[in-house]
């Protein structure tokens, strides 16, 4: 292999580059590819327009659960309304709600809209701590002047 450099040090460096380059390329390529498909955007109810969150696209929806809106049917489907005090979105979820889910509480729901603009949640997150508010929800509420920490919401 006459094209290899003759100095042992340069040879070793070449080997290292030859080993590192494909792994780095693999890691970067995989990251870019996966990042495109699996990043989930966060919206509050007043932002989830048809254009921003078309039916079927996976998003996170955050807001406060409207008091009195939680309706549990016998087949295990829960319907409730999430608000940022400017707009409201209807959410349907099948499964157990987290222990900390309560009316008036800030939650984040992950899922997608269906054709009738009902949000079908696959997962509902409420936090470990009863005073904790998802940061995105808090930020949006602050931005809209609806932040009332003393009310716990």
């Amino acid at each position, binding site marked *: 292999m006459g094209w290899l450099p003759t100095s*042992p*040090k340069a040879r*070793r460096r070449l*080997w*290292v580059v030859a*080993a*590192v380059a494909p*792994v*780095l390329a*693999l*890691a970067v390529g*995989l*990251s870019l*590819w*996966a*990042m495109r*498909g*699996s*990043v*989930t*955007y*966060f919206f509050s109810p007043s932002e989830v327009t048809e254009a921003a969150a078309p039916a079927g696209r996976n998003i*996170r929806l955050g807001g406060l659960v409207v008091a009195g809106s939680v309706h*549990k049917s*016998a*087949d*295990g489907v829960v319907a409730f309304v999430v608000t940022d005090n400017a707009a409201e979105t209807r959410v349907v979820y099948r*499964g*157990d*709600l987290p*222990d*900390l889910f309560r009316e008036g509480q800030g939650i*984040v729901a*992950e899922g997608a809209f269906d054709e009738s603009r009902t949000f079908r949640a696959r997962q509902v*997150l409420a*936090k*470990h*701590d*009863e005073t*904790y508010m*998802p*940061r*995105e929800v808090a*930020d949006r509420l602050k931005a809209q002047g609806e932040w009332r920490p003393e009310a716990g919401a």
Partner: protein
Amino acid sequence: MTVEVGAYLLALALALAAAQTALSAAARGRLSPVLAGAANGAAIGCSLAILAAFGVLIHAFVGSDFSVANVAANSHTDKPMLYKVAGAWGSHEGSLLLWCLVMAVFGAALARARGLPFRLKTTAVATQGALTSLFLAFAVFTSNPFARLDSPPVQGSGLNPLLQDPALALHPPLLYGGYVGFSVCFSLAVAALVEGRAGTPFWPAWGRWVRPWALASWALLTVGIALGSFWAYYELGWGGWWFWDPVENASFLPWLAGAALLHSAVVTERRGALAGWTVFLALLAFSFSMLGAFLVRSGVLTSVHAFAVDPERGTMLLAILGLTAGAAFALYAWRAPQMKGGGLFAPISREAALVVNNLFLTAAAATVLLGTLYPLILEAASGATISVGPPYFNAVFTPLMAVALLVLPAGPLLAWKRGDAVGAVQRLWVAALLALGAGGLALALFQPRKALAAAGVAMGAWLICGAAAEVAERIRLFRAPMGESVRRARGLPLAAWGMALAHAGLGVFVLGAVVETGFKVETARALAVGQSLQAGAYVARLDDVRIVEGPNYLAERATLTVTAAGGHAARTVTAERRFFPVGGQTTTEVGLDFRGLDDVYLTLGERRSEDGAPAWTVRMHFNPWARLIFLGPALMALGGLLSLLDRRLRLGAGARRRAP
């Protein structure tokens, strides 16, 4: 009164840590053993002072002294004793004190370490003292756990009920043992950058000094992460054990860097090569620990595990991270080019295999870091709020690791400097056949569409058989007479057993993770008493639901009978929904039925009325081989412990003395 003593002890510890830094630096400058002795004394005194302060805090928790803000916010008289004690590290202030305690104890152990050259040791002790001072100052000035309240409440607000769990009571001390243990590697790396001279036998010796600390920290971190994962598995009641949540990633990053450090330190120790890279990893591991602390406590990332979040203190932690990591990496950039590489090695050799290991581990760490921080970067750049979920990590991390695991068993069979690839393949063909057989069996037994899971089974079997093949090769099993093999097995160093056990443990974990993910079954139904539901090969019947009263909660307790599909092997399992009046929080107590390696996992949902009769939503998971997911890390940590006990690793014990 004792609380004031605690506050005083904390301030004293800060003064001692500062004295440790100054004295040790002065000892280095004047080459004075007397000053060095004083610095070591200050390090030990500092750890004792924090230990005593921690005792005072536990005393305040046990005695429910609600005049202390920290106790009032995190304790309650009705709480069981274990959680009163554990409450001491359940809050931001208390866990920061624990962090400082672990750091000072490791610092004291470093100060007592023998066999290190004077200049290296004094510089390392000074660095460790500076780190401890920074974190203690953070505790004393912004997060004093002993702060008093002007008007103490009659009753405390109670510890978050989710934290009231034996696994989580133990999880922080172990996790911090790992996180903070890397600070010693960091200090030794800084000292090596200051004191290291090219062209001396310094680097192999340094590799030997840094490895026990890296091993101990990594083993503790492994157990800590596994415990945290086990807690999430049975306490959150979601049926999962790893969510790629930012807080989990924060603990996983130092683990990956630490695993890379362990392996590259071997190369530095044996061959003097990769010294610059090992130093870099030592700096990186603790920087990741500090980054993790920042991410967890500042609340900049939305996590399902966020506790004790405080953005202002997060900023302070970011400043500490920027200061220490910034200074250390600047020093690295300045000094590293002067470090000449050590021994040469061929592309097929033990060194090269370890380089490949490091390459994949750091590439994996980089992708996890990117996925964890990407929401922050994007929000700063464009204002859009996003989250990066498990699909990203599964798509990126899993293939990278799969390639790394594929080559793993060959590494230990290659010789140093120049290995024999053909020989390694010859020794591994039995293991490869067994692994392929296991994968084929999995493919045949289960539906063919589970091809990926079957490939994972083959991978796990490959790792376990590969580790066994390596040991068999070393003791010449079946090639020499049995007596000879036994004699060789006895003579095999503990480190070799440790390595084989850790690699096999990784295989066990892979088997568990793959089988659990690929073949788990989940069902949910509203059940009235007497009705049953099925998941996998098991049937659960709801026998009874009653209200029970715990020490600080009320619970609906469901009694279920779990039987195998044929109706035999009946076992009684209880699952609860607990309501904690303090804080008004509900938690789920999962009913776990351990069936060999499998778990039958039952959670009790809300009570509903169905046609007038009460019914409860019961969710049932059948998690095959879930036990292996937690057994694997335990074996890995045990392997680390065995390596640590190896005589050759003990500082100054029988090792060749080499003065730098």
